[in-house]
């Protein structure tokens, strides 16, 4: 029982996946559908998929250090933003190694090297991104992206 995981609202979708990189393609397909349902168009749909994928990849690499049998929970929930615009709330919960959220920072992009780009991508793409350490252990990332007004107008 995880007290930190809020009860699922009727319009939200919860996924429970193992920390196995093969699972990522399934989550990408699900978030693509959900983002389109909420009213996002391109390039936002592609960018939301990328942010969610990067968040999960970071959980696998850092929280679970590559272990492939650990639990990850993901929630996609339609939400409302400023001026009543639509949006998508995404929660990513793991039960691995917790770190101080203040230490999760993007790196300098002038340093051209592989790795360490996930946090930069998440913070660039999403309107809100906040890490926390629930009392029951592990980490939770709460991300939100709002539909831009021109996309909402196109319907």
């Amino acid at each position, binding site marked *: 029982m995880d007290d930190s995981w809020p009860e699922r609202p009727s319009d939200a979708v919860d996924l429970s996946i193992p920390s196995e*990189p093969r699972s*990522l*393609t399934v989550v990408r397909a699900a978030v693509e559908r959900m983002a389109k349902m909420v009213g996002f168009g*391109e390039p936002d749909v592609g960018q939301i998929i990328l942010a969610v994928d*990067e968040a999960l*990849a970071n959980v696998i690499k850092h929280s679970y250090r590559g272990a492939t049998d650990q639990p990850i929970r993901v929630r996609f929930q339609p939400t409302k933003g400023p001026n009543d615009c639509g949006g998508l709330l995404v929660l990513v919960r793991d039960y691995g190694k917790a770190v101080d959220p203040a230490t999760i920072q993007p790196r300098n992009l002038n340093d051209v090297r*592989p790795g360490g*780009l996930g946090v930069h*991508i998440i913070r660039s793409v999403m309107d809100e991104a906040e890490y926390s350490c629930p009392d029951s252990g592990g980490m939770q990332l709460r991300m939100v992206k709002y539909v831009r007004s021109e996309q909402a107008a196109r319907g």
Partner: protein
Amino acid sequence: MTHPSDKVVQEVREEDGVVLVKLAGEIDMHRTPEVMQAVDEHMRSKPKRVVVDLSDVEYMDSSGVGTLVHLFRQVNSNGGKLILVKPNERVRSVFEITRLDRFFVICQDLQEALKQ
């Protein structure tokens, strides 16, 4: 849509000092090691030009981009050039977000890339 079990490295061949790599499908943290392994084998000859055809790549995450950065650094250290061909809008967007579009040479046509 490419099936997840399909090969992401469709072809790697070396011709007249040019290594041509054809990738396809979804290049994510699951599939990146395959790409790295296939490409590394051909980097031992220190080619002057490496052309990566991305026209059939549907998706790429930061680990896929990291593989291209790894390749970029290797080719550069040999005094060579890395050329990427025809990334789709989503892949191009990853280059832009990570600001790697400043460093990568991107062509819209394979023939043009081979002439570079």
